[in-house]
């Protein structure tokens, strides 16, 4: 997957301490639904949306992220898109909710390595200690001047989602920032 803008920066950044990879295409949805409907929603779709704010649940190839009291992101492998489209369309007929396909609005980065959290702290002031930001925690926040969705996938790995138009800016930023490590 390529960005619209052609800039002279590699798609992947591989370093000893930190690596940044642009993620493959994904199926992404923004879902607004009342938290009281979650049990029924799970019965209908089989998707387990986490109840607690800023947490995520991963099952097989689908990850559900809770970013607000009534707002979730559903991110899945691109091959599950047709199936999820149908499931969520079915849900939108039954519940008072909003389902928005944002598969191509966002791009994702995977940041891995011993200094992954340090790279994030270059542009984001959140506490990245494992106690304060445990594996599976997710939040929307700001990285430098771009709004991002940040999720910790492992002790030394993170996933960052941002709007496609912010992609080249962030990638450029990661490359420049990682030169210091």
């Amino acid at each position, binding site marked *: 997957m390529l960005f619209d803008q052609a800039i002279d920066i590699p798609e992947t950044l591989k370093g000893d301490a930190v690596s940044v990879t642009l993620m493959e295409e994904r199926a992404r949805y923004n879902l607004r639904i009342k938290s009281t409907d979650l049990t029924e929603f799970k019965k209908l779709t089989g998707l387990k949306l986490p109840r607690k*704010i*800023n947490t995520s649940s991963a099952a097989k190839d689908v990850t559900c992220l809770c970013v*607000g009291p009534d707002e979730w992101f559903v991110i899945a492998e691109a091959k599950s898109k047709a199936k999820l489209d149908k499931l969520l369309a079915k849900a939108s007929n039954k519940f008072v909710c909003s389902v928005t396909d944002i598969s191509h609005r966002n791009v994702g980065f995977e940041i891995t390595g011993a200094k992954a959290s340090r790279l994030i702290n270059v542009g984001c002031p959140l506490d990245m200690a494992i106690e304060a930001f445990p594996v599976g925690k997710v939040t*929307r*926040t700001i990285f430098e001047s771009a*709004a991002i969705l940040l999720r910790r996938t492992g002790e030394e790995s993170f996933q960052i989602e941002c709007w496609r138009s912010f992609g080249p800016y962030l990638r450029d930023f990661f490359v420049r920032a990682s030169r210091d490590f």
Partner: protein
Amino acid sequence: MFEIHCPYCDEKRPEIEFAYAGEAHIVRPNAQDQGEMSDADWSQYMFIRDNVRGEHCERWWHQHGCNMFFNAVRHTVTDKFVMTYKMGKSRPTAKQIADAKK
């Protein structure tokens, strides 16, 4: 980094994620009254604010976080947040504010 406690996320978050959204607890006139309101009443509702020097109840928006609005009590001189609370809760009493300061 200046931090603000978001009552929905229930944690302290950096100030850059938030946006100020004006004075809190200003009740919008209901639909029946709106037709009978004079211009003076409307201007009172639209434009007249307390401009408190001291503890001020105000709305904040966790724009780059959970995307929720909440209310906060902030000291307008020291810029110190005394407490934050969810939307729909009534204005905290003087005692509640004093307790929050402890």
